[in-house]
């Protein structure tokens, strides 16, 4: 009986390397998906990554393409320069919620507002991972973190911030979608969202934004499987999935 290989480890991550991410961490999943999309587009050698500060730094040597570690929060500014100088490359920022929605909020919004022709991969797990589980702008109300030991309180800490919806208020962005990696269907959807964003970028359409709701089992204090339930029961009601904007469909 002849067997055909139907699922292959992407060339976008180093062949024999084990990532530094925690067990169940979906940074690994998303790194893999970016590589798979580039493989399928035949563009694996054209990727350039502008990465934020945070756990994503563990991915820097894990990916096989060029990568710039940007000042905290400034990945969208760096990606602007990279893409304008390397217009034929596929440029993406890879940023967590602390990086993109707090420290780098200005850079994120302004790059989106200019309609810069690159893709933002925004990992929303509701917490600062690398620095030790502090509250992020995306932390849910009532959610405990090291800086909100009694849970986030709106009166003291404000509300969870919805980046996709905020960016959807701007005129320039071309494509905005929120997905999750909490189950196989979600992983496949995330992959097709990244594919769409990269295709639009390759066609010169402008700013594309993919927000991916993921878990941080380590800082949530949950095992990876329980963290999947937390995503579904707690995160997704606050961060509903779907395409917020697709100008390609309007044209």
């Amino acid at each position, binding site marked *: *009986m*002849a067997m055909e290989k139907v699922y292959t480890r*992407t060339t976008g991550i180093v062949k024999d390397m084990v990532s530094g991410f925690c*067990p169940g*961490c979906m940074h*690994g999943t998303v790194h893999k998906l970016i590589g798979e999309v580039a493989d399928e587009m035949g563009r694996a050698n054209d990727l350039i990554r502008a990465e934020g500060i945070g756990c994503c730094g563990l991915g820097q040597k894990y990916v096989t393409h060029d990568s710039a570690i940007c000042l905290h929060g400034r990945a969208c500014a760096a990606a602007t320069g990279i893409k304008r100088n390397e217009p034929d490359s596929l440029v993406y920022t890879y940023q967590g919620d602390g990086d993109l929605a707090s420290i780098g909020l200005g850079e994120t919004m302004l790059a989106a507002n200019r309609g810069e022709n690159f893709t933002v991969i925004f990992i929303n797990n509701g917490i600062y991972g690398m620095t030790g589980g502090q509250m992020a702008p995306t932390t849910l109300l009532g959610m405990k973190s090291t800086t909100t030991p009694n849970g986030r309180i709106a009166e003291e800490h404000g509300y969870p911030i919805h980046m996709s919806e905020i960016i959807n208020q701007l005129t320039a962005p071309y494509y905005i979608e929120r997905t999750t990696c909490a*189950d196989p269907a979600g992983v496949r959807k995330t992959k097709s969202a990244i594919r769409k964003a990269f295709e639009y970028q390759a066609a010169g359409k402008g700013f594309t934004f993919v927000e991916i709701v993921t878990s941080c089992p380590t800082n949530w204090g949950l095992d990876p*499987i329980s963290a999947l339930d937390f995503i579904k029961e707690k995160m997704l009601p606050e961060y509903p999935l779907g395409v917020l904007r697709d100008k390609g469909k309007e044209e």
Partner: protein
Amino acid sequence: MAKGKVEIRIESCKSCGYCVKFCPKGVLAIGENVNQKGYQYVVAENPDDCIGCAQCGQVCPDAAIEVYREA
């Protein structure tokens, strides 16, 4: 005869259990042995039931599983 087959990269597995949870055929299980990093890696406990759907590979954050299917 199995319609599919998985190849597990033992050293990449971190024992998160996603593949076990999402395999529709109950093929996979967390094994008893540990890899060099100390994780109890996944094994194909019921390999004959594998249909090669690749769901396990897709959800594995650590790209530890490659999948084959009857052509």
